């Protein structure tokens, strides 16, 4: 398996707060990798650094053998690396279908492509993906009128619409009821198998991430604490201590 994402010695500080310190990790093509850690351990900061939302202080980030450290958000998204947000973000004033159609990949797209008439193939794919997440019947409703859980599903479908090579999900199961969590985990796995999307997932729900991920990294105080297969990480003394506050 080839490495799709590789971080070497990434550090990021906000004033005196060192959110990430010398973080090195990698994700292989087609893998599902988890990222866990107590609140405030720097998980979301690491995601933001990877997608170019802010420049890093030190270290390099490589995606598909391209150094993306100096690139900004839209450029990195066009390379096929996408993130979803912890506080679900969709276009509330637009219908689900419109949300989907404008989420289509912008790779190799120019400004003029936007002036072409709406394309039937996009509508088609949007409908199939909405069906995949179970929102087909609500496709003509404004995104903002959906419940929180449904918005999460819509955001996930939008991400798939973009046909990314790799998707980074920030707490996909937060605020969703337990039954739906199982359905979501199942869909994430299917997206990984059927669409071949590499997944990198921040998660606090231990049961969900243990069944989903093949490999897990644990962050604490901005530093990488442990790495390994789910059962190894789960039984790691340092990880347990970090969550209980001993570290």
């Amino acid at each position: 398996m080839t490495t799709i994402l590789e971080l070497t010695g990434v550090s990021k500080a906000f004033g005196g707060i060192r959110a990430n310190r010398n973080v090195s990790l990698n994700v292989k093509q087609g893998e599902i990798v988890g990222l866990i850690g107590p609140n405030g351990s720097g998980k979301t900061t690491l995601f933001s650094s990877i997608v170019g939302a802010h420049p890093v202080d030190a270290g390099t980030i490589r995606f598909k053998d391209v150094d993306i450290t100096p690139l900004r958000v839209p450029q990195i998204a066009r390379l096929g690396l996408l993130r979803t947000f912890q506080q679900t973000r969709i276009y509330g004033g637009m219908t689900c279908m419109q949300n989907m159609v404008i989420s289509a990949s912008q790779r190799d797209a120019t400004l003029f492509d936007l002036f072409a008439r709406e394309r039937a193939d996009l509508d088609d794919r949007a409908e199939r993906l909405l069906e995949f997440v179970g929102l087909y019947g609500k496709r003509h409703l404004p995104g903002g009128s959906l419940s929180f859980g449904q918005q999460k599903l819509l955001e996930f479908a939008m991400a798939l619409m973009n046909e990314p090579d790799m998707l980074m999900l920030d707490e996909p199961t937060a605020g969703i009821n337990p039954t739906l969590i199982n359905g979501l985990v199942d869909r994430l796995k299917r997206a990984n198998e059927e669409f071949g999307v590499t997944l990198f997932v921040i998660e606090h729900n231990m049961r969900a991430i243990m069944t989903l991920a093949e490999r897990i990294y644990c962050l604490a105080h901005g530093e990488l604490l442990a790495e390994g297969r789910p059962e190894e990480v789960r039984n790691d003394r340092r990880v347990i201590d970090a969550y209980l506050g001993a570290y």
Partner: protein
Amino acid sequence: MTARHRLLLIAAAGLIGVLWPVLLPAYTIQMAELWLFIVFALTWDLVGGQMGYNSFGNVVFVGVGMYACAVVQVSILYSVSAYTAARGGGTEFVFPPDAYLTGLGLGLAAGAVAAVVVALCLGSLVLGMRGHYFAICTLGLGVAAGELAAGWDWLGAGAGMTAPPPPREIGDTNMLFYYMSLALAAVTFLGLGWLYRTRFVLAINAIRDDEDKAEAMGLDTTRIKVTAWAIGALFLGVAGGIYGNLKRFIDPTEVAFSGATVGVWMVLMAILGGKGTLWGPVIGAIVFQVTKEFFWTFLLGWQRVALGVLIVLIVVFFPQGILGWVRERFPERFGHTVEPDTVPAAAKDTVQ
């Protein structure tokens, strides 16, 4: 509203527009102004409504178009500085019909080009700001442009500039400018109607709803925003050129860059009709122009107070505008319907 209804409505509006000066010649100027107001409201809504960037500076493009048009109209025969120095008196400047019409055509084109160039230059600077910061900044742009024009001797400085006097052979120029305004309103309406069926409008709607998300999905937000502003400026530049000739006198701060009147009115018309819709600004402009003329006729002396009260009432009772209010009442008319999940296999996973 079906496609047929829509077509009928457009045809009726067109017919009224074409016949108006024949049927009610006394109101030709007010009606010409209405067509220009529709252009102002429609183009404001492109950026303010559809893209969510509340601009108080669109009047800059009107002023730029107005001055650019007048300058080209004059310079086709005379030196602009000699023309403005005469202050409309002293030397007589004669424009023969041929030269006048050529100048007008070239002037309107120059107005459009100048406005687009200004939009592209300013856009990349100010569209980096968001929300209130953008609104305040554009407010400043309008004021700054007015002060610049008022200090520029070549353009007549604070004394302003008169549009070239039309030759007598052309006849009633109000009719000419009326039909030009009508044509421009029609082109703007149809042009934006086309634009709102492309994915470009989805891109600017996405920027309105969540710009960070749009960026994270790979949309080139900066270029999209500047393009939208430049499209608005294109129509506003031409509108400004016509408006200057209709008004005949171009005052730098009262007519050309008048943030307190036209600059605010265009925002008001779009909000009154319903932001983020194609018909909203049109309805808003009609309601606004009719009430404004009504106030000026029957409440003279109190007209500005009445207008102020109207603004307060609109914002308090119709924050979503007329069309927005209708959409809230009858969402299914706008296609916001729930359908059964047609695929039974997926139904068991469906979130309720």
